[in-house]
C-alpha cells in the first residue's frame, strides 16, 4: 500500500492528546493561534544550531 501521509512524533502525540485537535490542525488545516512558546522555542533552536555550525566550521578550519 502506498503511504498516504507522513507521521511524525509530534503528530503521534497530538493524536494521542486529542483526536479532534489532530483532525482540525492536520486534516482540516485550520490556523492555530500563535504562541510565544513556539516562537521562542524555535528561536532558541535556531541559536543552538548556529552555535554548533560555527563550532564545526572552526573545528574543520
Amino acid at each position, binding site marked *: 500500500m502506498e503511504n498516504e501521509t*507522513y507521521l511524525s512524533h509530534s503528530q503521534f502525540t497530538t493524536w494521542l492528546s486529542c483526536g479532534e485537535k489532530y483532525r482540525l490542525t492536520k486534516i482540516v488545516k485550520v490556523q492555530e493561534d500563535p504562541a510565544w512558546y513556539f516562537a521562542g522555542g524555535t528561536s532558541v533552536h535556531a541559536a543552538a544550531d548556529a552555535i554548533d555550525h560555527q563550532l564545526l566550521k572552526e573545528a574543520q578550519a
Partner: protein
Amino acid sequence: MSAVAYEAGLAAFRETLAEEEAKAPDGPWRAGGRATKAYPNKEDKAWWLAEGPTMVHNYYNWRQQNPNLDIWHTPEGVPAIELGIVVNLPGGVTLKSYIDRVFVDKATGQTMIVDLKTGKPPKAGLQLAVYRLALQQQFGEAPQYGAYWMGRQGTLDTVYNLDSYPLPMVERWMRDVKKAIDMQVFVPNITMMCDYCGVKKFCYAHGATEYAPDFASDLQEENQ
C-alpha cells in the same frame, strides 16, 4: 571555543524571533508559564526577549563544558544538527523526524540522541526512542542513550537507556496510531488543557459548528 559561535547564536535567536512574530497568523498570542510581578502577561514576548538569550548562553556554556561530545555525522558526512530523516515502517507508516542532535562521545565512541527543550522536560523518553528508530532504519545507527537538554537549566535531564523502548514496540505504536488516523478516529479529549488549545475556537466539543463533522451521515453510512 569561540565567542564568534556565541554571537552567532544570539544573532540567530533575535532574527528568528522577529521572523516568527512577523509570519505568525492573526489571533491572540498564547503565553506559557505563570504571571509574575515582572511579567504580568506570563511568558510573553518581553519574557522571551529577556530569557531566550539566557538559554542561548546556557547552550553555549554546556557545549563548552562538554568537549568530549562531538556532533555525530551520517555515513554521507551530514552533521546531525536538525537532521531530517524520512523512513518507511511496517503498516504503511512513513515516519518523518527532525532530530535536534546526535552526539558521539570522543572517548567511548558511544552515540547519544539529544532533543532541546525550552519548557518542562517530557515525562518519558519515547520521543527519543522514535528518533532512535528513524536513525536505525536510515543509517543502521541505534544510539543506546538519549536525553532532553533543558534550556532553562542548561543541563541534560534524565539520560534514558533507550533499550527500555524496544524498536518493535515503537513501530507498533506508530502503526496503531496511523491505523486510527486512516480510519478517521478523531475523538475529542476534553480536559483542562483545552484552555490552552490554539484551535479551541474551531472545536465542536466546545460549541463551534463551522468545521464539525457531519455526524448524522457518518452514522447512517455505518448502519447501511
